[in-house]
């Protein structure tokens, strides 16, 4: 990543995400949206998948978007963005585009990315459209009322993976979306968190500039107050603990090289990671976990870190 912003004082001042939207108090995605829009600057088109962000920001006749913005459907934001990018290219060539160097940015949730939009995303990545795709991950279908997605972690409670007497929470592991994206050999992909603003905005800017070469991808971890069952004032704390416990490592894939970013760069050494329990215990969705289940999640996390360590050595 290039260091565009060194300190908090360097952060972009202009606000391009208007107040008055209907996102929940303490919404992690709302924090992400504010910094995404500020960082990409006004010369960009946003394609948004159906989801929390879409419904809460565009209640007709109001809008929170100061960018040209399009929402079409749930599963196709990458295809829509492909069309926008191709249109700008063609219109530029024919002298019919008057807005200069316009960027194209997708904003989609985990349902719209891991699950229903995966094919469309894969197509866009394979065709190498100059589009920045930003996934805000709150680990379930929150807009429809907290249903399990391919991103929901193992054992997490959702309304479709309830804590019953026979089955408790989700049975399967979370999908490795970064692995899927980087398998497309994109120029740049990175994880980011709403708790690490400087890291996040530098990654947004880096990913945006790399769209000159092809598609780039950001996986932003965005805690959800009602879905994860925690108080509104804990969003940033939980997001930070996700990183500090090693549950959500910050790293980037830059032209085939994987690099861990601080503080995750120290976490290959397990002793530097906070106990996973500290992250889990703040959230109602994990309240039912037994010691044995926590140990199992930890074991899987250790294996993941081992895998990341190997990738980082490549």
């Amino acid at each position, binding site marked *: 990543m290039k260091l565009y912003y060194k300190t908090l004082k360097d952060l972009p001042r202009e606000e391009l995400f208007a107040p008055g939207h209907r996102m929940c108090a303490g919404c992690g995605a709302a924090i992400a949206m504010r910094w995404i829009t500020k960082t990409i600057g006004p010369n960009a*088109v946003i394609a948004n998948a159906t989801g929390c962000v879409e419904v809460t920001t565009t209640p007709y006749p109001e809008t929170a978007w100061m*960018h040209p*913005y399009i929402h*079409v459907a749930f599963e196709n934001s990458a295809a829509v963005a492909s069309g926008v990018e*191709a*249109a700008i290219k063609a219109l530029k060539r024919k002298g019919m585009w008057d807005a200069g160097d316009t960027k194209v940015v997708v904003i989609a949730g985990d349902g719209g990315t891991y699950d229903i939009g995966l094919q469309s995303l894969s197509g866009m990545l394979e065709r190498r459209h100059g589009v920045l795709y930003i996934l805000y991950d709150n680990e379930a279908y929150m807009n429809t009322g907290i249903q399990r997605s391919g991103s929901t972690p193992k054992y997490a409670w959702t309304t479709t993976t309830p804590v019953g007497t026979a089955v408790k929470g989700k049975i399967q592991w979370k999908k490795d979306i970064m692995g899927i994206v980087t398998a497309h050999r994109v120029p740049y992909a990175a994880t980011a968190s709403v708790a690490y603003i400087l890291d996040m905005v530098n990654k947004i800017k880096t990913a945006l500039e790399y769209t000159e070469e092809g598609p780039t991808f950001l996986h932003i971890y965005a805690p959800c107050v009602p879905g994860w069952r925690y108080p509104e004032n804990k969003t940033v704390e939980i997001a930070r603990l996700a990183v500090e416990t090693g549950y959500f490592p910050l790293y980037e894939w830059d032209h085939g090289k994987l690099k861990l970013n601080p503080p995750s760069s120290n976490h290959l050494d397990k002793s530097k990671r906070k106990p996973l329990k500290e992250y889990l215990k703040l959230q109602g969705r994990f309240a039912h976990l037994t010691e044995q289940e926590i140990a199992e999640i930890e074991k899987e996390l250790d294996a993941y870190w081992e895998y990341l360590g190997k990738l980082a050595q490549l």
Partner: protein
Amino acid sequence: MMQIQKTRWVEALTGNYATAYAVKAADVDVIAVYPITPQTTIVEKLSEFVANGELNAELIHVESEHSALSAVVGASAAGARVFTATSSQGLELAHEILHIASAMRLPIVMAVPARAISAPISIHNDYGDVMNARDTGWIIYIAASAQEVYDTIIQAYRVAESVNLPAMVAYDGFLLSHTVEPVELNDEEEVRRFLPRPVRPYTLNPKRPVTMGPLASPDWYYEFKYQQAVALKETYKVAKDVDALYGEKFGRSYGVLETYKMEDAEYAIVTYGGAAFGNAKAAADIARERGTAAGVVRMRLYRPFPTMDLLKALEGVKAFAVLDRAIMFGSPAEGPLYKDIATAMFIHGVDKPAVGVIHGIGQRTMYVEDMYKIYTMLRENPRKEVVFMGVRI
């Protein structure tokens, strides 16, 4: 680099190639390409045009028809002139976006060489795909010759861009899409003058930001849909005007429907698409030789439905049949066009015998003799009934 065809000439083209030539003449900016039989040769030809520098367009090689339509929705929203094509399952897969494209008022043009829908899988022609998309808010033309396909694609751009609605140009899969016919091609500079770039009220442009595709509450949703309904209804007049204007400029026009020997006809077949029309005309000739005043009406503009033109065309007949190549299962009458006409007659107080004929399903051969039998049926036993023709029962 660009080679613009300067004069008119006649070329031997399939229906699909006629589509591709019209798209080239229209100077389209973005094309979403995905193969499906029998549409594929359209996007093959367009790919050739782009590869040879004859068409200055971005090709998006999408991974599905759902993405094809989604991509042209995005491109059209950004202000580009766009094209895509599909058939059958592809149209079904894209169905969700058909509704969105029309509701977002985007002037997309799409060719649909019509094909039967699975199951069982069939690559052959009927109109099950188009008819399942008939109420999605698109302008729908059904062309009956390669020449008409060429002319209609060009007209469709002019109409779509005038009313801000997407247009579908359908025609018989295989029977027309793969049949070679002589097609007179226009001077491309003339076509471009006929299709000036419209000033679109809203596009995705950072200089003039707008939010497209918002959430509408019960306070607003109905108004959006009502305006859409009115816009499509009003397209009728625009389609008529554009067809007349095209006729003045290029010497060929078709009207919203075409009639054959209807002036004094007592019995008529109403249908759509090339094969049904051609054979019905041949049967009408035979019937007339044998003393029956037979005629044919072909629907060219299917949506918006040209109700008054149709009722007028049928004014003098004693009885008529409506030949449909699609089945609307469980409907009070299985033929979609038959149902439309029955509705139109009911509303306008017209009551006469009308038989709904289902034929040509999965490209079951519709013989001229079958069409002749329809005239006999109308003459000997005029009634209101749906008949499945050409099927082994």
